[in-house]
């Protein structure tokens, strides 16, 4: 590393003569080529260095590890689990929390497996993919090249799709905790998802909206794969109930959505809608709600949200909180209701890292647990064996996200959904789960809004 930087820096200080010079001097040309050669040599050297260090320090399945730094756990077999998470880029605010969840999950997993007498230690290899497709692919490749067979992530469906081809042909098991695109429900591949598909949640959201009395709703959704697919499913379910749906996409990744919210308000007025269904992520959702709070039209209709904005700090502000109370804002999210494990997990995360569990933290945690046990069950570092083991392990596992059984397409088969609201607490406003979905209807455990 350091070497490469030094090489770069030394480059800037090459004498300026070269610029003025014409083609007379073969000498200078030579020196440039020489420098280029040196750089290439350095890079290759560094590469070989890494390769060599990997050779000495990397995980060698089936062989006891040489101690690196004389740790007491020297005799333990180290097994690496790869992660590619959005630590930078548009999903970075939840990615940062996921990073901590991943660390915690690995720690817990180690404790658990060692308690069972396995002499192994799992190690997280966390890479950032910046929510970019190219980086997700190169991360998965890099992880695979280190001998890692199970990779958790990437977050976005577009990324999962791009790594699918490499994963399938190289037998790398991919477990995404948050990809929900219906087009990825492909049987017999190496892609697993520990989260229920949007189709399920859209149905719950539709049931919620209908049960709450909405008959004509405007679906205001991100114009990306997540938003469009969710909106489609919602529309299908809601029309089945007998309601009417007006579709209204907005372009994500803008700096502000005031103009879009304004269009929404006029749409609500012209269509005489009685509710708005917002399908968004956290940042855009917070932005939209804080603008909506200023509009009298939008304050007079009901609001129903997807799981995206759940947990976002922007929604805890007084303005949005008051707005939520006014419009009786309710949202759905994948959740195993009254799951004591989840409550414990939430608390532990808060104590240990000081962060609140957001959306998909539970699915990520369970993805890690499943991966670990599947590797142990497979007993070898063979992708195919791990895949088969994963399916089996998941059948007998109940984690913070509930039952983890996979369906034939490798997606979570049984997903419960909870209803959340923003309620006033002593310190301000906070998220609260106030109900759940059962047998086609929403059952409220408490009344969030007076």
């Amino acid at each position, binding site marked *: *590393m350091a070497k*490469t930087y030094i090489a*770069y820096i030394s*480059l*800037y*200080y*090459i004498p300026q003569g*070269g*610029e003025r010079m014409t083609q007379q001097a073969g000498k200078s040309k030579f020196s*440039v*080529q020489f420098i280029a050669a040196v*750089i*290439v040599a350095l*890079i290759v050297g560094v*590469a070989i260095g*890494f*390769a060599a260090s*990997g050779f000495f320090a*990397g995980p*060698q399945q089936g062989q006891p590890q040489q101690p690196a730094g004389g740790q007491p756990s020297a005799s333990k077999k180290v097994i690496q689990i790869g992660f590619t998470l959005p*630590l*930078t880029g548009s999903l970075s605010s939840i990615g940062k929390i996921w*990073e901590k969840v991943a660390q915690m999950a690995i720690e817990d997993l180690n404790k658990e497996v060692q308690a069972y007498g396995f002499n192994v230690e799992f190690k*997280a290899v966390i*890479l*950032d993919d*910046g929510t*970019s*497709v*190219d980086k997700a*692919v*190169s*991360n998965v*490749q*890099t992880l*695979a*090249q*280190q*001998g890692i067979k199970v990779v958790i992530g990437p977050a976005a469906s*577009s990324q999962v*799709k*791009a790594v*699918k*081809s490499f994963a399938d*042909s*190289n*037998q790398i098991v991919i477990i995404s905790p948050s990809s929900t*695109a*219906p*087009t990825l*429900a*492909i*049987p017999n591949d190496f892609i697993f998802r520990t989260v229920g598909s949007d189709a399920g949640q859209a149905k719950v959201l539709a049931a919620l909206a209908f049960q709450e009395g909405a008959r004509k709703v405007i679906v205001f959704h991100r*114009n*990306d*794969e997540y*938003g*469009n*697919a969710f909106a489609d499913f919602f529309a299908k379910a809601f029309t089945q109930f007998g309601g009417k749906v007006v579709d209204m996409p907005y*372009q994500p990744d803008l700096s502000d959505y005031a103009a879009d919210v304004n269009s929404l308000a006029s749409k609500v007025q012209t269509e005489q809608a009685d509710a708005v269904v917002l399908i968004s992520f956290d940042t855009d959702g917070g932005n939209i709600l804080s603008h909506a709070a200023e509009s009298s039209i939008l304050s007079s209709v009901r609001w129903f949200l997807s799981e995206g904005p759940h947990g976002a700090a922007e929604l805890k502000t007084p303005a949005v909180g008051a707005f939520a109370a006014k419009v009786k804002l309710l949202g759905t999210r994948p959740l195993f209701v009254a799951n004591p494990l989840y409550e414990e997990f939430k608390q532990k995360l808060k104590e240990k890292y000081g962060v609140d569990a957001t959306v998909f933290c539970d699915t990520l945690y369970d993805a890690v647990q499943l991966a670990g046990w599947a590797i142990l069950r497979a007993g070898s570092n063979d992708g195919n064996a791990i895949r088969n083991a994963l399916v089996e392990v998941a059948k007998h596992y109940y984690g913070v996200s509930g039952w983890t059984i996979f369906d034939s397409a490798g997606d979570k088969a049984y997903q419960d959904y909870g209803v959340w609201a923003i309620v006033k607490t002593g310190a301000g406003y906070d998220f609260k789960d106030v109900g759940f979905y059962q047998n086609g209807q929403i059952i409220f455990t408490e009344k969030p809004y007076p």
Partner: protein
Amino acid sequence: MIDVVGFLISWLTFLGIYGILAVSLNFESGTSGVTNFGKVFFYGLGAYIGAALTVYLFLLLSGVDTSKVSPFDIEGIVLLGELATKNPILDIGLLVASLVLAFLVAGIVGYLLSYPIIRVGPAFVGFTLLSTGELFRIFVQHYEPLGGSKGIMSIPHPFAWVPNPTLRALLYLFIVLGLLALTYFVFRRLYNSPLGRTLRAVRDDEIAALCLGKHVPRLKAMVLFIGSGFAGMAGVLLAFYYSSINPDIFVPAVTFNVWAMIILGGMGNLEGSLLGAAIFTLFDRLLAFVTPQLGITIISPDYIRGFLVGFLIVAVLLFRPQGILKEGKIETPAWKVYEEEVKGEKSG
């Protein structure tokens, strides 16, 4: 143990794709002075043309009615995956067809786009192309016949019928490197020709070139045609490599990455772009081996990496504006004549 073969294959494939982009961008921007900040547009256009053509034609030629089985639904996606392993001729044939069509369409679009921009300066050219790229991305997100925001999946790999994954990747790598070599060869020839000389003149001083009878608008349109055509082919290569594309891949950041490569390598030096592309792609990959060892850090190493990219651009421009390899002279037979004359002069 690190899988060195796998590392080389995956790195070189990326390098090949980015190398094509970098060389063609360098020819446009470094040699000819068309500040193309919309490279990703043509890259994405090529990828979409190749991908859409392939999935539709593949299904149609396999006797599937695409009006019933859409290539964007689960059924179509699964079907494509199954069919691809059985039909080598179609797999390869469609790659070739995609490359040709993507070259032509991306090239023609580049040619047409030159109309609004030929009369304005580099600032406008760069910015117009940049926003055209965004325009394209938003459009594709809405356009269902191209998969909309879902993108296109299960693009049949040209060597899907090869059972061994390493061999499959290796064969594809040969195609990528072959096209990179072709790209390099074509641009090398163009560069060392009277055309290259004229284009450099246009870059140096548009107005003077015009007064010397050079049809500047036509030249620029031509450069955009060729450069965009090759970028389109790079897009096809990407689409077939990933087997899936979607609008999120084609964000302006891709263009800026390629720019950083050619600036580091040397504006106006084709070998430099290859070197720049190699350094950048390799650096990224090596970094991915190091960063996990650091654990949770206060500042994400990727921020430092991003910072260094920007810093590198600025520092290279300030301290070594010609890049690692500086612009060479235009190698034509004229220099042979020159050397003979000078020798004759000395001996005479």
